[in-house]
């Protein structure tokens, strides 16, 4: 490699120059930029498909496009409204069904304003899973079913029989009803009883102004619409009037304007002063700088080839374990006896013949020196192998005792 930009002093430097860094990293940088562009492109194309649940335009599993499409095929006119004024106008129209998919996300003033509107005759307002504030504002007669502890009761959505005189429910038969459960007011029609409460209640006001409270919007979703009598019930609830209006306000904008949602769903974020979110962002910047600080080592780790560590007695220890596992007591005793004979013979002056001392001479010499009977000495030095491990240990101790006796009589 030739360093055209480097001076003569830099011959010992091993750090790459800027030019080398650029040459080395340009393809990686190019690839990274390409990846980023492709990612942005994909995000840009697919980003518009994000709908909230039960949006009449949404083809997602939790959308409500299917039921709206069915109703349009029946000749209904459907539209969505996004502002309070449009909603008030829609509510005032006669012969209209208005759906509020998320009444709990509306703020208290918004709810109050909806309640103030004088609704047109022969109209229907559908509330999907409203909680106490929305119920209080829009359906004063209907109450949340609660446990003795005051907690709202709810049930999973499963197929249940209609069991009520409401024509739509009677027509649909079994349908997947559940979610929040309610107690009807006087004169209301309550359907699909679950645990003594009802997930579907119709309240009829003067002039055929109906109010329908639904515990869960699940039966209207694209995913579940074809199950049980869901489609029939959904079309019956939403398609009883000629016009269908779906209220889809920008909930986030209302919240950002400073009105907390009436539903009381305040998260942890709401309790933290707004400034500290920015401080957290600044802390993230600090963490990034700290990562850069800790990430750079003072030079690379130095490696080294180390020699293998093999103990010289490894094979001997391995052989000991093999003896023990194979219960080779005879072999072990033989080795110990032979070693003892080799130590005893020179001590007693018994000459070896072909590497081994003469058995008779050795036994006689040992018996003479130790004062033990020759038969016992012979049994120790040339006897039969021990029968179990305890016998082997005993035998070893006997052999040691004999050896000590010979050396220090």
């Amino acid at each position, binding site marked *: 490699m030739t360093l055209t930009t480097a001076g003569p002093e830099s011959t010992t430097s091993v750090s790459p120059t800027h030019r080398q860094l650029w040459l080395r990293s340009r393809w990686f940088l190019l690839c990274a930029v390409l990846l980023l562009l492709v990612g942005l492109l994909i995000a840009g194309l697919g980003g518009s498909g994000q709908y909230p649940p039960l949006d009449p335009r949404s083809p997602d599993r939790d959308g409500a496009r299917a039921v709206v499409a069915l109703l349009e095929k029946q000749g209904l006119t459907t539209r969505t409204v996004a502002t309070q004024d449009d909603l008030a106008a829609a509510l005032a129209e006669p012969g209209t069904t208005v759906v509020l998919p998320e009444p709990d996300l509306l703020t208290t003033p918004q709810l109050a304003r909806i309640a103030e509107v004088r609704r047109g005759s022969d109209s229907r307002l559908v509330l999907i899973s409203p909680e106490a504030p929305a119920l209080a504002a829009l359906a004063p007669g209907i109450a949340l079913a609660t446990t003795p502890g005051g907690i709202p009761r709810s049930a999973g959505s499963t197929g249940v029989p209609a069991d009520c005189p409401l024509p739509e429910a009677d027509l649909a038969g079994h349908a997947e009803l559940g979610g929040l459960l309610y107690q009807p007011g006087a004169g209301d029609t309550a359907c699909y009883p679950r645990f003594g409460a009802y997930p579907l209640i119709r309240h009829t006001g003067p002039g055929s102004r109906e109010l329908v409270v639904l515990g869960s919007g699940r039966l209207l979703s694209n995913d579940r619409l074809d199950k049980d009598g869901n489609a029939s019930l959904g079309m019956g609830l939403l398609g009883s009037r000629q016009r269908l209006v779906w209220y889809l306000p920008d909930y986030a904008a209302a919240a950002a304007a400073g009105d907390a949602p009436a539903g009381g769903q305040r998260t942890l974020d709401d309790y933290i002063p707004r400034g500290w979110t920015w401080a957290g962002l600044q802390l993230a910047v600090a963490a990034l700088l700290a990562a850069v600080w800790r990430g750079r080592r003072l030079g690379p780790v130095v490696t080294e080839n180390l020699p*293998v560590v093999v103990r010289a007695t490894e094979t001997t220890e391995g052989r000991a374990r093999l003896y023990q596992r194979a219960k080779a007591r005879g072999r072990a005793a033989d080795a110990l006896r032979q070693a003892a004979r080799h130590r005893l013979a020179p001590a007693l002056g018994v000459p070896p013949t072909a590497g081994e001392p003469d058995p008779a001479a050795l036994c006689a010499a040992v018996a003479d020196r130790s004062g033990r009977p020759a038969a016992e000495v012979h049994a120790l030095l040339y006897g039969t192998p021990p029968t179990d491990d305890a016998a082997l240990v005993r035998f070893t101790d006997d052999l040691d005792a004999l050896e000590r006796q010979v050396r220090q009589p």
Partner: protein
Amino acid sequence: MVLTGRTALLAALGALVVGLLLPSWAGIGAVTLPVLLGVLVDLALAAPVRTLRLDRSGDTAIRLGESATVELTVTNPSKRPLRAQLRDAWPPSAWRPGTAAAGSRHTVTIPAGERRRLTTLLAPTRRGDHHAHRVTVRSMGPLGLAGRQGSHRAPWTVRALPPFTSRKHLPSRLARLRELDGRTSVLARGQGTEFDSLREYLPGDDVRSIDWRASARRNTVAVRTWRPERDRHILIVLDTGRTSAGRVGDAPRLDAALDAALLLTALATRAGDRVDLLAHDLHRRGSVVGRSPNEILPAFTNAMATLEPALLETDMRALTSSALRMAPHRSLIVLITGLDARPIEEGLLPHLPLLTRRHEVVLASVADPRLDDLATARGTVRDVYGAAAAEQTRADRRRTAERLTRHGATVLDAPPATLPPALADAYLALKAAGRL
């Protein structure tokens, strides 16, 4: 480029400013931009690392266990003062255990155009060559927020020589050698021993060495004394194959073999003999031939410093032929190898007669004291089986040694601490017997 903790701390403190005074993008910018500006200023004003000049000096060879001092002279030719942290990186085994991190780091301040000398203290824990890895310099800017970092290659090698711990046995063996000089009247004559002088007869002297003519000239009985032969040739052959790799205590067998070889070399050189060295496993690993007495020990330690046990079966045939080529005349061949039955019986025994036909052969082997511990352990079943296996191994070694002795070799089997003096004693005994 490097950042410091100060940069991160400033940014973290800025979170207070953002949180209390300016909770917006502007606040984050107001805090982060000055920090980044400071970083840029530091980067621009830090002394350049690339143009630094590094020179080394200091120890190049030490005995294992001693410490080496290596000096690094850093010259700052730029016009800016260098405030730097510097890491002089060496392999882990070049440091005293536990000091690698602290010992390699230095903090220096070098004014523009000046130079400073840094001292790195090494204490190698392994024999052999230790090469300096590289020097990394982190040059900090004046604000202490950021700096430049780069590395330089500053080659240096410290060679850790064998420790030669058996040196302590040398004085006593030299004394024995001097005794040999005057006492050779008791030696067997006629083996080419050299006439030294006449002295008065003392009880115990061999009557056959009485010089009657000289006794007739004086009024006491005089005996002739003989001096041991000088200028004999000794060839030390180190087997660096797999059997030398086994650890005895904390060091491989080879280290004990080197120690024994060094003691024998020192002794034989004083006795006036010539010593050559051959290290061999599958191939020849090194040899030292025909050095003068003054330079032989340095030459040997240097050659031994880089010897490492190879995990290969030693080619005894090639080893024997190499040894024969290096010893054309009658010599003492000291072969330091293992006493394991199979390599000896299959490898060495077929070729041993070639060596013993013309040369005196001593085979030295490093025994493992742990084997004795195993053989004397008693108490549990496991201990007894261990003792049996150890006795089996010892019997195998004994049998191998007997076979070698029958072929005319002198066999030594001693633990690392006693092998060097045992080998020196064997040499002295052979010399006293006139068998060289």
